[in-house]
């Protein structure tokens, strides 16, 4: 009888366990991949400012920060990030604007920063870069210099910075060597003590655990939109954690 009860309990526990796992979004990210020890102080100041709290975020990036098609702008990660933050932060309107420059290297992107800072006055800039530099095989030292100049320009312009690296793209992995560029981005982020959103590691994790089939070659807009939704939510979590915004978070939306 005892054995039977134990068996039933184990089965019940296993069932609740799997039910909980199923409820968790498929794109869960382990903390060590996502969270950063560095703080976003300007974000905290903007959100805690009384009486008019608000948060302005600018995404500065290349083609992989966008999706094509009529639903593209609303399904790409910048829009998903905005939706996720607005849902999770109470009483803080969040605005995410994007400045996209397709086929641009880090050096090209950093030239646009002055205007971005003046026009938009963002509290936080998410700088997505590296892919084009890797494709064109720009010298990693030049890439590093461009990154450093860009980060300093953004800091001087009064914005917090998050660096975002490349996508994990298994199909082109043997042709585009992103490794050295990802290493440079990690080093620069550490040097300036700013968070790095490790898109490469996170997407690789999703691929490894089977959350998404990133090997797919076909024209699958649903997959692309899902991945971007997950990226947007993950960045929202990083911003809340690094900006110490937990106090502003709605309990229900967690």
């Amino acid at each position, binding site marked *: 009888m005892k054995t039977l009860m134990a068996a039933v309990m184990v089965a019940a526990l296993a069932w609740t366990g799997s039910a909980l796992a199923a409820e968790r979004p498929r794109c869960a990210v382990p903390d*060590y*991949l996502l969270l950063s020890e560095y703080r976003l102080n300007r974000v905290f100041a903007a959100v805690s400012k009384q009486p008019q709290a608000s948060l302005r975020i600018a995404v500065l990036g*290349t*083609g*992989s920060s966008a*999706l*094509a*098609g009529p639903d593209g702008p609303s399904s790409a990660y910048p829009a998903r990030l905005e939706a996720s933050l607005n849902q999770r932060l109470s009483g803080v309107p969040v605005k995410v604007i994007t400045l996209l420059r*397709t*086929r641009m290297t880090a050096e090209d992107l950093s030239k646009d920063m002055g205007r971005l800072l003046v026009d938009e006055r963002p509290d936080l800039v998410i700088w997505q870069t590296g*892919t*084009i530099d890797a*494709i*064109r*095989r*720009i*010298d*990693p*030292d*030049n890439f590093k210099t461009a990154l450093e100049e860009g980060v300093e320009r953004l800091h001087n312009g009064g914005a917090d910075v998050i660096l975002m690296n490349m*996508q994990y*793209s*298994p*199909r*082109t*992995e*043997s*042709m*585009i*060597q992103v490794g050295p560029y990802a290493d440079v981005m990690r*080093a620069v982020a550490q040097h300036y003590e700013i968070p790095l959103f490790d898109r490469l590691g996170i997407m*690789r994790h999703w*691929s490894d655990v089977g959350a998404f089939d*990133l*090997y*797919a*070659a*076909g*024209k*699958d*807009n649903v*997959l*692309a939109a899902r*991945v*971007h939704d997950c990226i947007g939510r993950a960045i929202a979590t990083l911003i809340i954690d690094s900006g110490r915004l937990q106090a502003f978070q709605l309990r229900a939306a967690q």
Partner: protein
Amino acid sequence: MHSPVVVATTTGRDLRLDLFRGIALWLIFLDHIPSNVVSWITIRNYGFSDATEIFIFISGYTAAFVYGRAMRERGFVVSGARILRRAWQIYVAHIFLFAIYMAEISYVATSFENPLYAEEMNILDFLQNPDQTIIQALLLKFKPANMDVLPLYIVLLLWFPPILWLLQRVPTAALAVSVAIYVAAWHFNLNLASYPSGVWYFNPFAWQLLFVFGAWCALGGATRLGPVLRSRVTLWIALAYIAFAFVIALTWYVPGLTRYVHLPTWVENVIYPIDKTNLDVLRFAHFIALATVTVRFVPRDWPRLNSRWLRPAIVCGQHSLEIFCLGVFLAFAAHFAMVEVSGEVWMQFLVSALGIMIMVATATLIAWYKSLEGRSPTARPKQADADLAGGEA
């Protein structure tokens, strides 16, 4: 089929060289397959140096062994000409691999429609100016991913005749020249230019140190170092350094370990970045430490060297140019199979195992061809022997 080993042992060839070069070729192959779980076994994850160091050192050692004898017996011009012919063969092999790479990348670029990767589909961007790019590839300035080792090897061989000449007369001076070039490369940032920008991934001015050091060891340096290598103190220093490198390497891969292994900032400032392009001193020292320990526990007359279990690695090491090129191609093919069929773990094991089996089978086949040629009545036995070894320098 046993002839290569028989020939090798009778001419005093050190089978350890073939064994470890063969293993290095396997490891390079495994490391070149992206997202391959099997590459966790390769040494780059457990210390500072990787299989490239083994490959370049042993290549320098065997080049000196083979061409050094040719230079003593037939003079500078003949051996120099043979070294240049070898460099030409490697150049042709490199261009052949480039053609295969172009075929693969063009196919992938046109068959890839996933909207998530619109940006990565621009992989052919580098071909915006094909006239430029292809000429730069012929000039060894444009080198696709994973194709950096052969150009390094070509440059090392082009420079080898004079250094070999000096090594045979005043070995210490040759080594001093090599060290001076290495130091100058670091001090003045010497490197060859790449296309479209940047420098060579393997800086020949730095990596020549390992090649020349290998050659120096082959021409009597190893004997001179004997007392040092046999000392207990050396062994303990080497083991301690390997352990240190192992702990540092672990912190790269095990998140959270930094909480227990906290390096003082000044240590971090000293060791990082560990520069592969310029053959960081830490990498060089790590290779020397590994070699010291290996030489101690695997003596030249180790009976197992003739065991059939080590034959597959030895036969690969004896035909290193062919097997290296095959490995680069197989890594492309393995990745292609993973992309087209499945990228799951079982597939990663399968393509890794299959690739090594193909390398071994091909090496065995080449050995068989060479043994046929060696037995043919027109070939003088001595010539065949030089070819066997000379073909592998």
